[in-house]
């Protein structure tokens, strides 16, 4: 780990003033950043600790109600706080489940909302500075394309990067049409707040896999707003992985159904573990609307959701696995 200097920010203005400097990272839970700093994958010269901002503005670290029935997740709220929150569990079961199925009890007590959606891929080549990686070192090449790529993405890939986005929470958030609120920017100081729809927050790797989000350097996430969605009470996050707990998804599905009788009026569908970003499938949602909720419908919709999947040597199994994961999620959420 290279040396860095450390600043404890006590107010939001202090934080974004310090965060706009070159080679500066904000740190909250630190569970991704410090891990990657130990590997010399992340090499910030300055760290701005934002964990005390909740003292000046408690809402930054809390779950709070929004007018109209939505919920605001303060950027510093910890995964465990959000997962166990009774409003989150009642209104958005998939959100709570996506958090409880992620990481471990210790990590969930540390990792923040803002950090979770900014976590970096677990691609082993990204984490290994001895191998080429376009995401870590633009232009150096992708080791996964012809390497061991069993855990890699099949949706949204490019010839430059096939790394999977690792967050479970982000899959639920993209399904729920969440909105990211940010402050600050390259100039720091009192830059007005702006909002980024969650679906536009992460970007596809394309020719520049080093760019993962539309967040600008120095901008600080202050909250993630989850709008009201009445039928999200019938929602589910299903995660399939190599072991029963404490592992990243091989495939996952976040689903919500608006059911009347046996007919689906509206649906939300997003996939995890298979995309280079949290993968919302509007096509699959449209295909479900107005259909009877039957196994045949679900199977057809799963085919649509995985249309366009591109596989590599070791991850072709993910197409079938993702389809089966989605069908099972849709079946279980009916129960």
């Amino acid at each position: 780990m290279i040396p860095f200097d450390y600043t404890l920010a006590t107010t939001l203005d202090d934080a974004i003033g310090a965060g706009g400097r070159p080679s500066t990272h904000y740190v909250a839970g630190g569970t991704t950043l410090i891990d990657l700093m130990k590997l010399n994958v992340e090499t910030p010269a300055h760290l701005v600790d934002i964990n005390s901002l909740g003292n000046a503005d408690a809402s930054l670290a809390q779950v709070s109600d929004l007018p109209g029935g939505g919920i605001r997740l303060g950027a510093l709220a910890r995964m465990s706080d959000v997962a166990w929150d009774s409003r989150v569990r009642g209104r958005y079961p998939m959100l709570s489940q996506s958090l409880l199925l992620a990481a471990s009890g210790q990590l969930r007590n540390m990792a923040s909302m803002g950090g979770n959606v900014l976590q970096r891929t677990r691609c082993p080549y990204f984490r290994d500075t001895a191998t080429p990686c376009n995401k870590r070192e633009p232009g150096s090449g992708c080791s996964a394309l012809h390497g061991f790529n069993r855990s890699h993405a099949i949706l949204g890939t490019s010839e430059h990067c096939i790394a999977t986005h690792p967050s479970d929470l982000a899959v639920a958030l993209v399904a729920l049409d969440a909105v990211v609120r940010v402050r600050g920017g390259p100039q720091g100081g009192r830059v007005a707040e702006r909002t980024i729809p969650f679906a536009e927050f992460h970007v596809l790797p394309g020719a520049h896999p080093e760019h993962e989000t539309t967040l600008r350097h120095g901008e600080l996430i202050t909250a993630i707003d989850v709008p009201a969605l009445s039928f999200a009470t019938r929602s589910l996050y299903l995660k399939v992985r190599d072991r029963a707990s404490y592992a990243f998804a091989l495939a996952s599905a976040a689903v919500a159904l608006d059911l009347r009788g046996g007919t689906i009026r509206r649906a939300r569908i997003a996939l995890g573990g298979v995309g280079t970003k949290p993968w919302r499938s509007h096509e699959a949602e449209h295909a479900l609307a107005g259909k009877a909720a039957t196994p045949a419908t679900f199977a057809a919709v799963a085919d649509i959701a995985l249309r366009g999947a591109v596989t590599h040597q070791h991850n072709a199994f993910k197409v079938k696995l993702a389809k089966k994961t989605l069908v099972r999620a849709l079946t279980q959420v009916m129960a």
Partner: protein
Amino acid sequence: MLVFSSSRWDPAAAEHVEGYNRLISRLPGLAGARLLRIGPDGPWRELGFADAELSIPVITEGSAEMARRYGVREGPAVFVIDAAGVIRWRHVEGDALATPDDVARALASTSGDESHASGTWTRREFVATTMAAAFAIALLPLTRRANLQAQTSAAALGAGASDTVAVTLKVNGRELSLQLDPRVTLLDALREYAAMPGTKKGCDHGQCGACTVHVDGRRVLSCLTFAVMQQGKAITTIEGLAQSVGASGDALHPMQQAFLAHDGFQCGYCTPGQIMSACAMVKEPWGAEDNDVREAMSGNICRCGAYPNIVAAIQEVRRGKTSTESGASKGAAT
């Protein structure tokens, strides 16, 4: 005891001899001991005391690294380390070396903590325990210190960053003042700087749970946070777990007792992390089943595979049946 002295050390200088004599004579059971001999010059020099089986090894070379590990950068410093290796007292700030009276008071308070009611050390106990804890006077000559500072400055220039910073941690109810590089994790601060090795380093990447401690009552991984980020928080480690529930002396926390009763370990390396995780987990809103325990504890890996017994131990505590009355609480003085 470790002493870092910033001046060229002449063990025979009159003021030093007087200092040793005053210090030694203040220690319980050693009244009347006087400096008798000073060993030949070399990497180690021994001070021998009359009327005592006590000699103090003096490290005279290679101590710059040791000073750095203890966070000593300039000026004299004194550390009192107990037989368990825990730093019980320190005097780092200021230009003056701690007085023999200060050190003697610290040693007396240390003895009071260690199931010796207070000041009841026998000379033999004192010699045995303090020698085992590296009772030493270390010398840090000015020339070596200058080299150390030059190296640090060069590294800082290279990366545009930093020096050590003063970090105050509240661990097991005690305040620790350390001088740390910001890169030092909470885990390394506990193990390498505060001499509290009960918290274990397994993977050092947040994948095994061996380093689990409590911060403000919640279980976290000490390997994935910097010590400088944990100031002002109440940190509990395995060393302070029993006292955190009011147990005294050698009494164990009910969870520790349950792990013993159910053989919740083989090699024991993951055990401090398992127990810290388990103690926090029982306060979280999990269901009552064994499977809930397995899920809640999935962040703690046991290479020996003691999982069935770990689950049994935790379930015993959750069901309120404890085995604290069995044999392990021996010799508690209060």
